[in-house]
């Protein structure tokens, strides 16, 4: 089974991935801010029991989803070492707060890592589905099935006026955060990215870096997500984000064409210089790695570089992250060692492809 991030999805020349996350809490327990250890433990057991007994799946889940559900495994965060925890963060499966938390928490993930369910993060339940490319609708459908399944077994905290009740009022109502990860090198190079960011915030869309809140845009990667969760239906939220994403995608594509038309030599030079360093350097820092990746990815998207696939690039993008490197090495590495390993891993993957 390939991991979701290696596959290519629709619009993958600009859209890297789509994500839908639902926040839910159970009725009979206080929220995370006021839970006792005992209660945290009970919530975790309840969820485990509900999910692990997969034979009782309701008929609404399609045949494909059923097989994914059967592959959902429980991961005890507390038993993981520092590197493994950080790997989960780098794979976008959990938040940094989750792995550092003192709470009694747990994680349910599917083997292909498309589904990730955090128990006892800020809310009792955070259901997340990740799909490659532009597939927000599919991500929502899967989240919806999982949510309905758990709903059939446990009672959610819900009010008719305010919807699903969440720890933080910013998640109230649908409890849904829908986001899309975009690669926007042309917008960044031309400086039009500023205008795009401003327009997004005016439209109630949040723009963040590669790793969500408090992260910076690195490698020209931008994550856009909805801000309003109450008063809109889930379909409306998805339509809004999809429309805005498509507009940004079209902007990016037309700017790429312009860049090529204006000075194809300059563009080619930029791409091939980066490709040269990317495939030959012996030491590559994290920042440089992301920049090179962006240039090479652009080269592939525009058909300038033809001997690497996007799948390989996706894989490399994950493997060069600090914890992933250390997992490969099998031990903790200092910065210099990581920078050397990074270059090695890149050369290795490129040689195989």
């Amino acid at each position, binding site marked *: 089974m390939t991991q979701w991030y290696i596959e290519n999805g629709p619009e993958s020349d600009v859209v890297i991935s789509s994500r839908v996350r639902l926040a839910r*809490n159970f*009725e009979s*327990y*206080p*929220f*995370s*801010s*006021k839970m006792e250890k005992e209660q945290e433990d009970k919530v975790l057991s309840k969820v485990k029991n509900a999910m692990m007994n997969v034979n009782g799946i309701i008929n609404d889940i399609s045949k494909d989803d059923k097989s994914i559900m059967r592959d959902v495994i429980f991961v005890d965060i507390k038993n993981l070492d520092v590197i493994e925890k950080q790997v989960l963060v780098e794979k976008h499966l959990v938040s940094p707060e989750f792995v550092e938390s003192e709470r009694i928490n747990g994680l349910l993930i599917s083997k292909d890592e498309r589904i990730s369910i955090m128990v006892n993060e*800020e809310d009792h339940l955070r259901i997340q589905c990740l799909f490659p490319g532009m597939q927000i609708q599919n991500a929502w459908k899967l989240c*919806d099935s999982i*949510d*309905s399944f758990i*709903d*059939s077994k446990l*009672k*959610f*905290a*819900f*009010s*008719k*006026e*305010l*919807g*699903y*009740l969440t*720890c*933080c*009022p*910013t998640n*109230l*109502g*649908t409890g*849904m955060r829908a986001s899309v990860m975009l690669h926007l090198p042309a917008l960044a190079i031309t400086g039009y990215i500023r205008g795009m960011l401003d327009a997004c915030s005016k439209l109630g869309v949040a723009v963040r870096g590669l790793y969500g809140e408090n992260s910076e845009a690195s490698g020209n990667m931008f994550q856009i997500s909805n801000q*309003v*969760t*109450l*008063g*809109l*239906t*889930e379909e409306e939220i998805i339509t809004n984000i999809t429309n805005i994403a498509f507009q940004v995608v079209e902007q990016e594509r037309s700017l790429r064409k312009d860049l090529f038309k204006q000075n194809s030599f300059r563009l080619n030079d930029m791409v091939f210089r980066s490709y040269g360093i990317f495939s030959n350097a012996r030491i590559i820092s994290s920042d440089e790695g992301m920049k090179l990746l962006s240039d090479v990815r652009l080269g592939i998207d525009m058909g300038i570089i033809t001997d690497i696939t996007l799948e390989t690039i996706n894989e490399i993008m994950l493997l060069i992250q600090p914890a992933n490197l250390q997992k490969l090495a099998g031990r903790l590495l200092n910065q210099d060692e990581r920078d050397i390993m990074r270059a090695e891993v890149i050369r290795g993957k490129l040689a195989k492809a």
Partner: protein
Amino acid sequence: MLCQNCQKRVANVHFTQIVNNKKSEMYLCSICANEKEQLSMVSPFSINDFFSGLIGVGNSNYTEDNTLPQKVVCEKCGMSYEEFRSIGRFGCDNCYSKYYEKLKPLLKRLHGNLEHTGKIPADIYKSINTSREIERLKEQLNKAVQNEEYEKAAEYRDKIRAFEINVENS
């Protein structure tokens, strides 16, 4: 010069307080100034009220302290509204019903909307549908009675009874 409050220590703090557009100035020693500052925290235009700028004027600590003799907390988890304001998170689902009125302006600011229109848990969906259905049938029954269509009215009456029994049993 000596502190205007205690008259004992040297005044090294110039304390200015503006309340309701009235400015008062005092020369205090650092200890009395600290005490004054702590008291100010509970007065009308404190830093906490900056947050309540989001919630709306007229919702500040000042009015609360005036009208309620004791601290108000949620019965289920013990969270006070002040606590919510300082950490930005609620303690339990009951907090939402307890503090609903105070919360409305904040929700309006955050989401622009106050009513949930999205997905509903399955069992609540059933009960909402049932009550809507009962309402609808009652309307039909009234119309039928007005039109003197008594047989139809009887049918509707029986249907309503069936629904209501269903609700009682569930």
